[in-house]
Structure formats: structure tokens, C-alpha cells
């Protein structure tokens, strides 16, 4: 809850103000049954018609007062919740955007997503709720007990005895019901999985005429789900009737005991009527309190998950930009670099090479050989464990993050496209002129298809670029990489969806129009065969380095790959 305290403390005044009105409004509400019993027991027997109207008017006034107080307090609560959750969300998003890749790996993207979406929502909801009913419910409960004691201490004791029974039974049932619901949720996932699989595999299913088998498979999942949901539903079905029963039995007890007290002139009938009213108020507050407890534990978990991300971010230290200009002819150099994602074994080990400015580096190897890892290390998404990486003659730790990244124009594997215009996707938040955007698109062989859109560069793309073909997506991403005039153009398996004609044209323009140093990661020999230096990676080690012809001669793995591809997937 430290997190909540931190974000709510700037809003102290508003909180205090809201609580005060809320308490006032609750007191007014509590007065109503009291006035009721006063009218029936004292005013009516006295026979004063005027006083009945006076006190009846007071009841209406109290009701109106409670209304205005509650509305004002609720609005205040909404404002506090808005301000607090705006700040929480902002800080959390800022933190996630700055997390290092290793931190993102540790927290995982789906988990970060749910922290940003459902956890902040829970907190928002909770902050609002605790102000609205978190004050009212205990006030009504405690105030109700106080007033009933004041009215008649003996009857109040009866009341007090039944309340815990109601509370405990609700708590107990909810405690048993919630795990059952969680189980049912898992079964929903199981049922949905079958549907999802079958929608994706409908061709296979039909080809093999396995519809009947699938029906049975679905039926099993469906049955399990129904069984689980029934169990949870039946358990929770007890809550309402049980609560009502306890409440009503308490009332019966009050009436029964009241009869004896009235008979001995120790109490008055009007008080019993008031008791019935208080009892209803109080038992509904108990139900509300149970809900608050459930919500509280959920919000506590949410707050903890948000706090975890924030504290990771706060531990960051940023090295300042140096502003040093490029020196030397060597654009990129690895000196005996090793790195491991986990603890166990090195993903890449003892990598050394150097690349001159304006040259092209090709990296080839099997999946998991460590190709992309080399890129991530060069851009300092991850820190190397051993060895040194130099960009423009300086160790990369020397540069500020933004300064280093500016040197690179990158197209990553299955890179992402935002639901925005084509131009904005190329610009990607940077200040790049219209003219440069167009030039980059032309270089990336994307101009032709972009200009074929009726609204050209203003064409809206859907999230993940699903309204583009694979090749179009990749050309757009390459345009993005080129638009910032990078020193390095990095293509991580970026031309795999391009047909050969486009791929060749792209290579040509990049070579001729840019003097950027290019790094190409690929699985196809044809994508790297023109590079000035090709590294062949196998299980994290360089097992061959040189030009295409040299490697064909003296690197067995390279020759094997080359032959097996036989010119590769020429026709895609």
C-alpha cells in the first residue's frame, strides 16, 4: 500500500474534504430511523400534529442532506481517483518504455501488459470505491451500533451477536467459492483452446474427415467446464439465502426480546421499528465490507505488481551523451565478446571481428546460433559478459543510450508496425521531414505501393500492419530504418519476405545511395553472399569468416547450407 500512499499524498486535501462530507452524510442517514422511532414513540402519543410535521420535515431534510453530501463526496472521489491513476499510469508506462531488454525478459511482455491495463484499472477502481463506500459502510455499521445502543442497549446486544455470524458466513462461502471460480476459468481456457485450434486447423480436420473426433474432444472440454461452473455456482448460491435468513432471524429475535422489554416498560414499540431499519442498514454494510476486503486483496496484489516495475526503473542509471564525433575507419569491432541470457551456458562466446566504415557484414547460421544476439549486444540492449564492443572506435558504454541508438537504423525480426499512418510509421516519433520520408520509402522500394494508396502516405495501417503483405511490411520497416540517416543499417532477417527482384533492387540502392555500414542477418545464403565479410555462426561461435567464395572453399557448414538451398527459395 506504500504505492497508494505515495500517489494519494499530493491529494491529501481533497481526500480529507471528501471523507469529511461523507462522514457527515452518513450521520444524516443514520439519523433517519432514529427520528422515525422518536415520532412514533414520543411525538405521536403526545398528540401534537404540528410536531409530527416538524419532525417529518426534518427527516426529509436529513434525506436531502445525505443526498447532496454523498453526491459531492462521490464526485470528489472520482476526481481523486482520476488524478491518482493518471499519475500511476504515466509513471508505469514511462518505466516500461525505459526498461532494459533483460528486465523486460524477466518481467515478460504479457505480464507488463496486464500490469499496465488490468492492474492500473483495479487500482483506479479501488481508489474510487474506497472513498465512496469504504467510509460509508464502516460509518453506517459503527454509527448504527452506537445509535442502537443509545436507543436500547439490551436489544442492541442481540443485534451485535448476529452480525458476526452474517460476516463470517459470507466470508467463508466467498473463500470457498473463489478458488472454484478460478478453476472454472482454467476450464474456459481449455474449451476456448479447442475452438481456437480447430478454427486454425479446419483444413486438416476436413482433409482427414476428423470432424467426429473433434466433436468428442470439444465435448470433453465442454463437460469439464460445465461441471466446474456448476460446482462454483452451487457453492455461491448459498450466499444470498443464508444472508437473508440470518438477517430475518435476527429481526425475529429483536421482536421477541422486544416484547418482554415493552411488557416491563423497559422499551417502546417504535424503537423496535427503528431497530428493524438499522438492522437492514447494518447488514447491507457488512455485505459491502466483505466486498471491500476481496477488492482490497486484489488491489494490494496489483499495487505490488506495479511497484515492482517502478522500482526496477528507479534503480536505472543513465550514462550521459558524450557528443564525441566518429573517429577512425573501424565502424564496429567486437573483441572477444561472450554473453549469456541465462546463467547456464553462453549464447555467444569469444566473438571477435572488425568492420570498416561503409562495408557490409553478413551473419549466417542456424536458428539459435546467436545471430540476433550479436546485434542486440552491439546496440546495448544487453550488456556483454566478457570482452569489449567498440562503435566508431569507442566502447559502447561510452555513449548515452539515445546517442548510440541514433547511429543505428534497425529492422528487427517480426518488427512492429503501429496503427497509424504510413508516414508516421516511417517517421516513428522522430522529427523527419516529409521529403526525407519519401526518399527513404523510395530507397526501400516501398514508394511504389505506398503511392498506389488513394491517400498515399496518409494511409492508415492497422495494428501489426495486417493490411499489408509480408513484403510490403518489410519494405516499410526498411524505410523506417533508412529515414534517420543511420550510420549503420541493420537488417535482422529482414528480406526473407521479399521476392528476389525487390531484394536485389534494395541491395543495389542501399549500396549506391547510402554510405552506411550495413549488417545483414539471414538464413539464406543469397541474402549475405554479396557481403564484404560473412560470419558463419554455429552454436554461438564463429566457425567461418570471409567472403562468399572463400567460405565456399574452406567452411564446410557454409558450403552445406549453400548447397542445400541450391540458390534458395527462388520462387517466393
Amino acid at each position, binding site marked *: 500500500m506504500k504505492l497508494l500512499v505515495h500517489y494519494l499524498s499530493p491529494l491529501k486535501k481533497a481526500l480529507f474534504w471528501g471523507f469529511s462530507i461523507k462522514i457527515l452524510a452518513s450521520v444524516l442517514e443514520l439519523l433517519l430511523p432514529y427520528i422515525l422511532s422518536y415520532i412514533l414513540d414520543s411525538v405521536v402519543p403526545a398528540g401534537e400534529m404540528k410536531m409530527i410535521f416538524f419532525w417529518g*420535515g426534518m427527516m426529509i431534510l436529513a434525506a436531502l442532506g445525505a443526498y447532496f453530501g454523498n453526491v459531492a463526496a462521490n464526485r470528489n472521489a*472520482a476526481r481523486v481517483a482520476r488524478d491518482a491513476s493518471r499519475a500511476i*499510469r504515466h509513471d508505469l508506462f514511462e518505466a516500461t518504455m525505459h526498461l532494459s531488454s533483460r528486465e523486460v525478459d524477466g518481467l515478460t511482455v504479457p505480464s507488463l501488459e496486464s500490469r499496465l491495463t488490468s492492474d492500473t484499472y483495479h487500482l483506479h477502481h479501488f481508489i474510487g470505491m474506497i472513498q465512496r463506500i469504504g467510509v460509508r459502510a464502516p460509518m453506517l455499521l459503527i454509527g448504527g451500533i452506537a445509535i442502537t445502543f443509545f436507543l436500547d442497549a439490551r436489544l442492541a446486544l442481540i443485534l451485535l451477536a448476529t452480525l458476526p455470524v452474517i460476516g463470517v458466513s459470507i466470508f467463508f462461502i466467498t473463500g470457498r467459492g473463489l478458488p472454484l471460480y478460478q478453476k472454472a476459468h482454467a476450464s474456459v481456457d481449455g474449451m476456448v483452446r479447442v475452438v481456437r485450434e480447430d478454427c486454425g486447423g479446419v483444413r486438416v480436420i476436413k482433409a482427414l474427415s476428423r470432424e467426429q473426433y473433434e466433436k468428442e474432444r470439444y465435448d470433453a472440454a465442454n463437460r469439464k467446464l460445465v461441471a466446474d461452473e456448476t460446482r462454483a455456482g452451487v457453492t455461491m448460491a448459498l450466499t444470498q439465502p443464508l444472508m437473508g*435468513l440470518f438477517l430475518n432471524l435476527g429481526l425475529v429475535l429483536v421482536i421477541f426480546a422486544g416484547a418482554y422489554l415493552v*411488557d416491563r416498560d423497559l422499551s417502546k414499540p417504535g424503537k423496535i421499528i427503528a431497530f428493524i431499519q438499522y438492522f437492514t442498514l447494518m447488514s447491507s454494510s457488512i455485505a459491502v465490507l466483505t466486498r471491500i476486503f476481496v477488492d482490497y486483496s486484489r488491489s494490494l496484489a496489483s499495487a505490488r505488481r506495479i511497484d515492482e516495475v517502478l522500482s526496477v526503473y528507479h534503480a536505472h542509471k543513465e550514462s550521459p551523451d558524450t557528443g564525441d564525433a566518429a573517429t577512425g575507419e573501424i565502424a564496429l569491432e567486437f573483441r572477444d565478446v561472450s554473453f549469456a541470457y541465462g546463467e547456464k551456458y553462453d549464447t555467444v562466446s569469444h566473438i571477435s571481428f572488425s568492420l570498416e566504415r561503409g562495408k557490409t557484414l553478413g551473419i549466417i547460421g542456424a536458428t539459435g546460433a546467436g545471430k540476433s544476439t550479436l546485434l542486440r549486444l552491439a546496440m546495448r540492449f544487453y550488456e556483454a559478459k566478457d570482452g569489449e564492443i567498440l562503435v566508431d572506435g569507442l566502447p559502447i558504454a561510452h555513449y548515452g543510450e539515445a546517442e548510440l541508438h541514433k547511429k543505428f537504423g534497425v529492422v528487427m525480426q517480426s518488427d512492429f508496425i503501429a496503427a497509424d499512418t504510413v508516414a508516421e510509421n516511417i517517421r516513428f516519433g522522430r522529427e523527419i521531414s516529409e521529403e526525407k520520408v519519401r526518399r527513404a520509402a523510395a530507397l526501400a522500394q516501398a514508394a511504389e505501393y505506398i503511392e498506389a494508396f488513394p491517400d498515399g502516405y496518409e494511409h492508415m495501417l492497422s495494428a501489426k500492419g495486417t493490411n499489408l503483405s509480408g513484403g510490403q511490411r518489410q519494405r516499410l520497416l526498411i524505410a523506417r530504418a533508412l529515414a534517420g540517416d543511420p550510420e549503420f543499417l541493420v537488417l535482422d532477417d529482414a528480406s526473407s519476405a521479399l*521476392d528476389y527482384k525487390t531484394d536485389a533492387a534494395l541491395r543495389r540502392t542501399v549500396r549506391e545511395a547510402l554510405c552506411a555500414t550495413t549488417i545483414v542477418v539471414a538464413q539464406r545464403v543469397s541474402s549475405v553472399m554479396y557481403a564484404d565479410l560473412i560470419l558463419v555462426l554455429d552454436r554461438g561461435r564463429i566457425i567461418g569468416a570471409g567472403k562468399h567464395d572463400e567460405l565456399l572453399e574452406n567452411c564446410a557448414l557454409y558450403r552445406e547450407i549453400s548447397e542445400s538451398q541450391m540458390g534458395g527459395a527462388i520462387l517466393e
Partner: protein
Amino acid sequence: MLRMAGYLKHYPVAVCTALFLMLGSNILALAGPKISGLAIDAIAGGRGRVDFPAVRRYVLMLVVFYLLSAVMAYLLSVLMVRLGQKIIYTLRRQVFEHLMTLPVSYFDSHPTGDIISRISYDIDTLNTSLSHDLLQLAASTVTVVGALFMMFSISRPLLLIFAVTVPASILFTRFKTKHIHPLFRARSVKLGELNGYAEEMLSGQKTVRAYSAEDVTISRFDTRNEAAVGAYYKAEWYGAMIGPAVNLINNISIALITLFGGVLFLLTQTKADLLPIFMITLGGVSSFVQYSRKFAGPINELANMMSEFQSALAAAERVFRLLDEPSEVPDREDAVKLPRARGDVRFEDVTFGYTPDKTVLHHFSLSVTSGQTVAIVGPTGAGKTTVINLLMRFYDISEGAICLDGRDVREITRETLRKNYTMVLQDTWLFYGTIFENIAYGREDVTREDVERAARAAYIHDFILSLPQRYDTILSDDGVNISKGQKQLITIARAMLSDAPILILDEATSNVDSRTEQKIQAAMHALMRHRTAFVIAHRLSTVQNADVILVVQKGSVIERGTHEELLAAGGFYATLYRSQFT
């Protein structure tokens, strides 16, 4: 809704019992305040004059009534849960079984997420409305009518108070549906946009950092955040009134009842000539207050119930639209079984289009004899799968004929037609289950040995043995980490189990390392042996050895011939082929 209610018809006993329990528990509960009022009247005599036998009688009655009512209410809930689950089960089953009969085109044109939301979320909504809201509505009606009747019997003049409060709550309800509900909807939309943006940016976090676009991204997030919390505040600003307003109307009617009830009670006590209609006892006032609460509850809930019914109606429409979706055209009645074809395939003057206005095959003819290989080549998205869709009768042609062993495929039952094909597609389809189940999928009578032989032929046996659970290893999204290439090999093993005379094969194996690639290639070659093969080709060797090459572009077959013929023709194929060596 009517059609939905039809599902209730199958459970007449349960529905009648539910109605009985609902009526019983509500009427018993309704009697409560009346009896407690009578008890208070028995007490009201004051000191020494309390009518104890009456009090005891009433208290006993109350206990029995409340107990019975609670038991009935509990039984009712349990019954409704069970009934609801039965209906939901039937409905889900119907939807799924119908799904299985739908043509492939339905799945091609409807996103999976949409289908899933119909079979899970929509059916749930429907069930809630059916088993909960419907009952609630009935119970509310009973309560309102009953409470009204009770109040009528206690004091008619006091009923006039509702002439003030009921219109007030109706007015408020209308205000709520008109002005507040749209604000809450707007709030969900804005929140959805914010979440969408967050998810999108999170998935591209590395790219954002690579381009140092954090600040811009954060400020865009802030704009959406502001819109989301703003919409929240706007909705809450009005929403803040809902709870208090309901309480206000309640409290005012209680105040008015007390006031006028007090006056009437006083008159009853003091004026001897008071008309009986105005007479009221103290217990009467007490009961009246309690009934007024019971009366107000459902009226306040009415608006919520109405909106829930509306969403249930929308859900019902979506579910039933799926159920009404036409199934695959059934096999012709005189359709023959063709359990084992030779494998001669002929396209005779076939014209076909996915939509009527855009044909992709025009008067296409092709003759393939048993054992030949047809290679289909062309750029991505050019429509290479069309031929496969037609061969397997996933789609039916509009003109011409496709023949298998000289017989029009429409004269053959779908099941036996499809059994003549074995298929390896690019997007490997594996389901949650063991490796054994995944490989044996095509057949019912396969033994462990058969599966292992197929796995060996697909070069995946050794890998499977290296897994801790071997063939019993469960394949799941979050379970064992098997690579794309290994998945492909498993689907090849599945195809190996089939002895179908015709093979459909998609050669594409992107993102696979070279060693696995070699294995896949070898396995595919083994599959092609002795079979008529339609191959979406990606390898030069396949293309060069093919008997016919079909070059597909923009959905149409633009060139056809052997490798040499096409090169000599100097068309699109020749350009494609040469571009790799420039």
C-alpha cells in the same frame, strides 16, 4: 429471445419447479413484514399489556416462514445454476457441431477471435440473462405486485405517497439510461483505446528504444491516458448520483410514510368517527415501511435489467446467426464412395472466384496422370493455395469440372474424396495433446509401431526419444519448446501414416536452420515418391524435376510448362529465375 426460450421447453419439470420455488419463496418472504407488523401490534399495548401468546405465535410463524423461504430460495438458485449449465452445454455443443459442418470459406472470412467470443462470451451472456435475469424479472414482478397488494391492505391513503416517489424514480431511471449510460460506454471505449495503445507499444518496446522514441511514445500515451481518465471522471461525475439518488427516493418515501402514517395513527387513536379506510396501527406503519423498501428495490433495478436484456438479445442474435450459417453443401444423394483412387487428376475448363465479381481461374484445364508432380510457383499472396482449395473441395467451382480418376469430384462423397489426399501445409497444425496423438491423428487404428515408423521416416524419431516423456510428451503453447522445423517434421510424420495416392505439399520452411531444413527436404522427397503431388514449390530441385509448373500471379495462373519450356518462353518465370543471379 423467443427462440432462446425454446431451449427451456426441453426441461418442463425443472422450469415448473423453478416457478413454484420462486413464487413460494417470494410470497413467504413477503408475508414477513406483515406478520412482524402484527407482532408489533401485539406488543404495542405497552407495559403489562403485551399479548404474549400472540407474540409467540407470530414469532414462530416468522421463523418458519423465513426458514422455508430461505430453503426455497437456495433450492431455486441451485436449480437455476444446473438448468442454466445444461442449456449452456447444449448450446455450446450445437454451435461447435455446427462449426464442424461449415465450409472452409467461413473460417477464411471470420476471424477466430470472433468465433471464440460467440461460443464463450455470447453464450455466457445469454445464459445469465436466461437463468438469472428472467427469474429476477419474475421475482421482481411478484415482489412489486405482492408488496403493492400488502400495502393496499394496510393503508390505502398511504399508497398515495408512491404517486410522488414512483414517478420520481422513473424519471431518474430515464435520465440514467439516456445520459449516464452513454457516458459509461464512452468510458469503456477510451479505456480500450488506451489499453490497445499500451499493448501495441509494449510489443514494440525494443523498436521504440532502438529509435529513441520513448518520449514521443510516452507523450502519446499521456494523451490517451488523459482521455481515458477524463471519460472516467465525466461518467463518474454523473454516476456519483446514482447510489445516493436511489437512497434519497427511498429515504423520502420512508419519511413521508412516517409523517403521514404518524398523523393517521394519531387520528386513529383520537378521533372516534374516523373513516375505517384511514385507520392504521403502529405495526401497520412498520410493515408499510418495510414493504415500501421491497417495492422500491425492483423499480430501481428495472433499468439495469432492461439493458442486460438488450445485450442478451444482441448476443442471441450473434449466436443464432452462426447457427443459421449454411453448412457445406451436402454430398449428392447418388454420390459414390471412392476409397482408393489411382491418382489421375483433371481440371476441365474450370472457372472459379472467391467472390462472384472476381474470378481467379478462367477456363483452366490441366491433366495430371498418376505419379506426376505439379509445381505451383509465384510470389507470396498470389493465390497458390487456390488449386489446393479446389482439389480438396474446400471450395466448389462455379464452372467446369474437376475429375479424379475420370469421375467428377462432386459425384464422390467428400469423406472418401479427401481420404485420397494427404496434406502437409506451411502453417503446421498441432493441437494440445501428446506427440503420439498428434501423429496418429489421421487414423483410428494405428499402433505404436506405425507411428514410430512414420516418425523415423520423417527424421523426427530420435528427437522425440530425447524428450523426457517421449511419444507421450504433451505439445502445448507453454510446454515443451519444440522448434518450427520440428513441428513441420511432426506434420510430415502424420502425412507419412497415410497411404493416400495424392499428396499436397507446401514446401515453404522459413526460419528453419539448415540441418533441420535438410531433414525436412529429405522427408518431403520420401513423401512424394509414388504419389501424384501438387507442390507449392520453393526449391529449385522440385521445380526442375516437376512435370508441370504453374506460375501464379495475382490469383491467376499466368504461365505453365516445364522448367525448360518456361525459361525458353522468357516470361515472368524466366525473370524470377534469373533475378537471383544478377
